[in-house]
């Protein structure tokens, strides 16, 4: 168990210095020896994002010689679990990256600092007001959005071109998408896409394409077992035909691009958020391009612009001012924006966006152009998901596993999910 290691560590520490007993073993963000303020900053992401973040943090440390920032990152699944544990122990990092799905739970649990109190060092005037509001819970600004993202179909350009199947245009419906995946599978001999059945995000896009939503305004389920049965019947059929990835590959997904079929070279496309799609560049030799997510049969778009991620400060931090300075730097600093590019989505600071936008290069530009092509076409984003949704993401994937391993019919699995989701949202 993960607990064991800590216990062992504490026991030896106790033997040496009784540290465990006297100091409670492991404080958070205390000043280190040299009188420097030490901030802990954690995020999830891919190696590309890590490299740029390290560079940006180094610049921050140069600007603030009295502050030392220790950083750590991991894949999303692992990050989510670790942060929850740390937060529960009152040991959340001083500055932490947060997902839309975490804001509600973390804010109501008293983990996050009210950032309005740090106005002196943290400017929010240049941030898109609509986006800024997504970081508020009960009118308190608990987190600042860091970027704007949207879902995309990332694809292996080289393999697709070689297959002879026409490249994706500016829009397609789910049935056109399905036909294209079948054609790709036939021509290339490998599945066209990752099985989207496991992804709650893809399901949401499909659902919105029909004018529905994952959740109702009061935080209940916005769809029925019939809806989910139809979705899973659709993906189940595609999997059986070999148009999307088989169960053995789908089950290995863990939120990192490395473990997607596209990243492993066993499929031609993958539905993902646009910012992390940069991670495919290092893995896919043929180059990576972005296509929009499929829309409903009548052309209703399902995808939307979402605050791609947030940054928040721990309510327990010993250095709220310095932590807020780091947040300000990450969101508003022009040089930081240049380094970070679109690795966390397109910048939310409008001045920075206008200024940096034209200078974006490589994949950052691809993402910016992709978002520009969708501008004005998409519907409003849904409100932040209710707290229970955090656990439901993995429930969704797990229940679909039962379908893809042919252990349950789509109907059985869908009813299973609805039962579990209702229990989760009630508590």
């Amino acid at each position: 168990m993960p607990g064991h290691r800590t216990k062992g560590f504490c026991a030896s520490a106790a033997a040496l210095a009784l540290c465990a007993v006297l100091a409670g073993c492991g404080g958070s963000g205390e000043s280190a020896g040299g009188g420097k303020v030490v901030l802990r900053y954690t995020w999830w992401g891919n190696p590309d994002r890590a490299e740029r973040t390290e560079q940006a943090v180094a610049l921050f440390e140069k600007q603030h010689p009295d502050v030392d920032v220790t950083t750590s990152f991991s894949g999303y699944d692992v990050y989510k679990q670790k942060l929850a544990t740390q937060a529960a122990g009152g040991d959340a990092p001083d500055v932490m990256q947060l997902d839309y799905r975490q804001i509600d739970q973390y804010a109501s649990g008293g983990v996050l600092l009210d950032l309005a109190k740090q106005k002196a060092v943290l400017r929010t005037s240049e941030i898109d007001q609509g986006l800024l509001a997504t970081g508020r819970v009960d009118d308190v600004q608990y987190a600042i959005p860091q970027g704007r993202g949207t879902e995309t179909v990332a694809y292996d350009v080289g393999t697709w071109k070689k297959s002879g199947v026409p490249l994706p245009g500016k829009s397609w419906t789910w049935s056109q998408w399905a036909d294209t995946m079948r054609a790709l599978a036939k021509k290339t001999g490998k599945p066209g896409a990752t099985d989207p059945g496991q992804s709650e995000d893809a399901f949401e896009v499909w659902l919105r394409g029909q004018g529905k939503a994952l959740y109702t305004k009061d935080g209940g389920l916005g769809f029925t077992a019939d809806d989910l049965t139809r979705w899973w019947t659709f993906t189940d059929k595609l999997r059986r035909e070999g148009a999307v990835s088989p169960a053995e590959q789908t089950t290995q997904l863990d939120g990192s691009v490395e473990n997607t079929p596209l990243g492993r070279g066993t499929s031609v496309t993958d539905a993902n958020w646009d910012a992390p799609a940069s991670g495919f560049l290092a893995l896919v030799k043929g180059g990576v391009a972005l296509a929009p997510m499929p829309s409903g049969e009548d052309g209703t778009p399902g995808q939307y612009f979402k605050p791609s991620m947030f940054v928040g400060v721990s309510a327990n931090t010993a250095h709220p001012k310095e932590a807020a300075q780091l947040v300000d730097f990450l969101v508003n600093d022009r040089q930081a924006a240049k380094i970070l590019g679109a690795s966390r989505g397109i910048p939310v600071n409008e001045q920075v966006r206008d200024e940096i936008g034209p200078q974006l290069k490589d994949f950052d530009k691809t993402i910016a152009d992709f978002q520009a092509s969708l501008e004005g076409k998409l519907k409003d984003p849904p409100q932040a998901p209710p707290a229970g949704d955090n656990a439901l993401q993995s429930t969704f994937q797990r229940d679909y596993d039962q379908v893809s391993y042919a252990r349950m019919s789509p109907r059985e699995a869908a009813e299973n999910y609805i039962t579990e989701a209702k229990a989760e949202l009630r508590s």
Partner: protein
Amino acid sequence: MTTTAIPTETKRVTATAPKRRPKREREGAAWVFLSPWVLGAIVLTLLPMAVSLYLSFTDYDLFNPPKWVGLRNYVQMFTEDPRYWRSVVTTVTYVVIAVPLQLALALVVALALKGMKRGKAFYRSAFYAPSLLGASMSIALVWRAVFNDGGTVDNLLGTGGWVNKPGWSLLAVALLTVWQFGAPMVIFLAGLQQIPAELYEAAAVDGAGKWRQFVSVTVPMLSPVLFFNLVLQTIQAFQVFTPAFAVSAGKGGPADSTLVYTMYLYDRGFVASHMGYASAMAWVLLLVIGVVTAVLFRTSRSWVFYASEGDR
């Protein structure tokens, strides 16, 4: 007992039994030296256990204060949660596969090593090494790679990757445990060397063959050691976590096929944020392990033979 400790006496300590110091003095020193561990036991073991017992009667999501719900977690566990029972079945299956296989392998290798004249030390270390490495996450990850599709086993046997097939994944996890048979093997080896050679000679004189010697001399003489290993490995097997966690990439998949008890406990606690429920699960596990151990001890009366009993 009037003598006080003098240097010459302390030097002789190893050679003969030391003269006893006054009880209180000995105890005082003992407590001073023990204090870090005693404090550690209280602060890091007893206190968390008490808290966990309390939490098992609450609804606690890690963020908001625990809410007292009485026995609801326990009731839900036994009556409303099919995944809970799936995890119980998976764990029992795992124990039934892994423990006998591991002990059998340990015994076979120990027997082979016992009779070996050359290279004993080498083989002993070689077979023990996995036990030293095995607890580490890295080995479990290697295991995952070996049994993954495109991995070594897949290439050799064309299995398509055991860890991705619900029917095979639990076996891959169990094999990782079986492979770490070094610890019971070393204990078996020590036990085998305790068996007096006269017994074998006497048996041989009476015309007993190798197999007969094994059944009539080795097994009964070894039964206390066998029992010790059985209890220890069974307790450990019930708590299996690392191999299942690593091999299934932390999810107990595919399709819940490696969702052992502690994995589900972890899932409830750290993924779904139901700490109260997870605590309740932990206490049920403690009770079950207690009962299983008690049953093993009860049955041991009929098959474990202590040589000293005969001497009496």
